[in-house]
Every structure is written in C-alpha cells, then in structure tokens.
C-alpha cells in the first residue's frame, strides 16, 4: 500500500497530471473533466473516506506566468483514517469554470462563493453563486493579481 497520492495515481492514471508530497503534504493535480468522479470516490470509497472538505481556495499565478492561470485547491481530511490530501485543478482565465463540490460536501457552498467573489472562478451547479464577502455593487474580483491594488469602490463617502 503506497502513499495516498500514489494510490490515487494508480487508480486514475490518466486523470492525475502531477503529484508531489512537499514536506509531507500529499498533493495531486487532477484534470478538470474527471474531477467530480474522482472526488466522489475520494469521499465515498472506504479506502480514502474523506468526509471533510477542510478548505477550498484558489491561487492566481498571473505574476508567476502560470498557464493555465488559476489553480483551485481542495484540502480533504478523513476523520476515520486521520489522513489528508490536497487536490488541485488548473483552470484557464477564459474558461474559469469548475464543477461544484456542493453535491458532495455542503460546506463547499460558502467556499465556492468566496472563490467566485475573490477570483472570479465560477462553479457549475452551485445552488446560489453570489458574492459572499464583497457587496453586490462591487465590480471585479479583488484577489486577482490584475485588480489594481489602489482601486477603491466605497458605497458611501469619498471615492478614493
């Protein structure tokens, strides 16, 4: 029985683009097309048994010259097995769309709204994809590296 990420690679060799365990954090990079099927298996298969989605976030690699530009990151944790796995999926700026994880973990609801709000990555199948931190009047996605660092959009008071 190999490491977790090796087992994922063995089982879905065509879907795993990359894997590493930098400082013990096991990570797999998946293809987007196989994402939902693999996540479902990771949650429900007793071998993996990831009941918890600890965190869901994204990284904008614009300044690092990443192609595709974004990485959506999922941190999974298994209560019964006490093991963790980090799952990453790369998405393009033009096609910034992910399948939702809300059908598997209800907590993904607010996380996905946050990623939409901050990075402008949409989640297909999300029940209610609205901004969660910023206000509806806000234009743009502030954690994108091309959002001007001094741009302000106050609701009331002086504009800048």
């Amino acid at each position: 029985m190999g490491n977790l990420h090796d087992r994922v690679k063995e089982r879905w060799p065509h879907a795993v683009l990359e894997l590493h365990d930098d400082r013990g954090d096991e990570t797999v990079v998946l293809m987007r097309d196989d994402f939902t099927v693999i996540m479902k298996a990771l949650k429900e298969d007793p071998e993996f048994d990831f009941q918890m989605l600890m965190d869901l976030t994204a990284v904008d690699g614009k300044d690092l010259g990443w192609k595709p530009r974004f990485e959506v990151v999922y941190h999974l944790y298994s209560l019964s097995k006490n093991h963790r796995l980090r799952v990453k999926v790369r998405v393009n700026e033009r096609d910034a769309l992910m399948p939702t994880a809300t059908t598997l973990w209800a907590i993904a609801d607010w996380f996905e709204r946050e990623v939409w709000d901050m990075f402008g990555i949409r989640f297909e199948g999300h029940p209610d994809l609205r901004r969660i931190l910023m206000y509806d009047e806000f234009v743009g996605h502030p954690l994108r590296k091309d959002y001007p660092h001094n741009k302000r959009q106050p609701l009331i008071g002086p504009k800048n």
Partner: protein
Amino acid sequence: MEVKTLEQTGGFTSKLDDMVAWARKFSIFQYPFITACCGMEYMSTACSHYDVDRFGAGLPRFSPRQADVLFVVGTISHKLAPVLKHIYDQMADPKWVVAFGVCTCTGGFYNNYATVQGIDTIIPVDVYIPGCPPRPEYVLDGLMKLQEKIQIEKKAY
C-alpha cells in the same frame, strides 16, 4: 430676619450651560459598535479591572436611540459603512463619536480594497484613540478628553 448670603446657605451659582454639560459628561450612555479585535480591549476597559463606570460611562445601550456616544471599535469595511452611518443617524442629539483604534482613525494598516480609510470620511469624529489595539489607559484618557470636550461645548438642550 437675618438675610443669609448664598454661600452661607450652602448654595452656589452657575450657568445652566455648565450644569447641563456637567451632568452630561458624567452620564455617558455609549453605543459600542464593535467589529473586530479592538473589541477585546473595549471589554477589558469596560469590565471591573479598569472600571469605566468611574467615569459615568458604565452602561452601554444596545439601541442607538438611547445612546449619546458612539464608540466605533474595530475595522470598518466598505460593506459595513452604510450601516455605521445609519446607526449614527438614528442617535438623538446631542451625540458624540469616539474612533477606537487605528483602524477606525485612519484605516490602520488595512489600506486595501475592503477597508474604510478612517471613519471620519463617513461620520464626524470627536475623539481619536490610536493604538492597535489601544491599551485601556489610552481609552480612559480618550474618555476623559471627551468629557472635557462635552464640558466646554455648547450643544442645544
């Protein structure tokens, strides 16, 4: 009948303005508008160790309509700014505002897309208490400065 002077009767003369101001400065009903970490220091000031009741400010009101001093404690985001303004507008005159902590004074180190760069861009502020968070001694000092201000101010009654 012997006529007593005012001093002999134990009375004293004053101006109505001064009397009202004196009463006001020792009966501050505050509205704590607490949003962030400064709230911990506010609690410490308000509780028995530093005992803000010594200054007549011991009874926070949780309705702006019953309060005279708005304590803005913690980071104010642009999303929250209209709420703060609304609360301020609901308070009855005479009213005062205390900016508690650098976040409320200037935005502090949060010079970013989300944070109001000083609540005085939205509502008038009477006393600024800097610090991140300010120590309770700072807060009491600010409160005493506010009392001085209330004493010399001429507000309608």
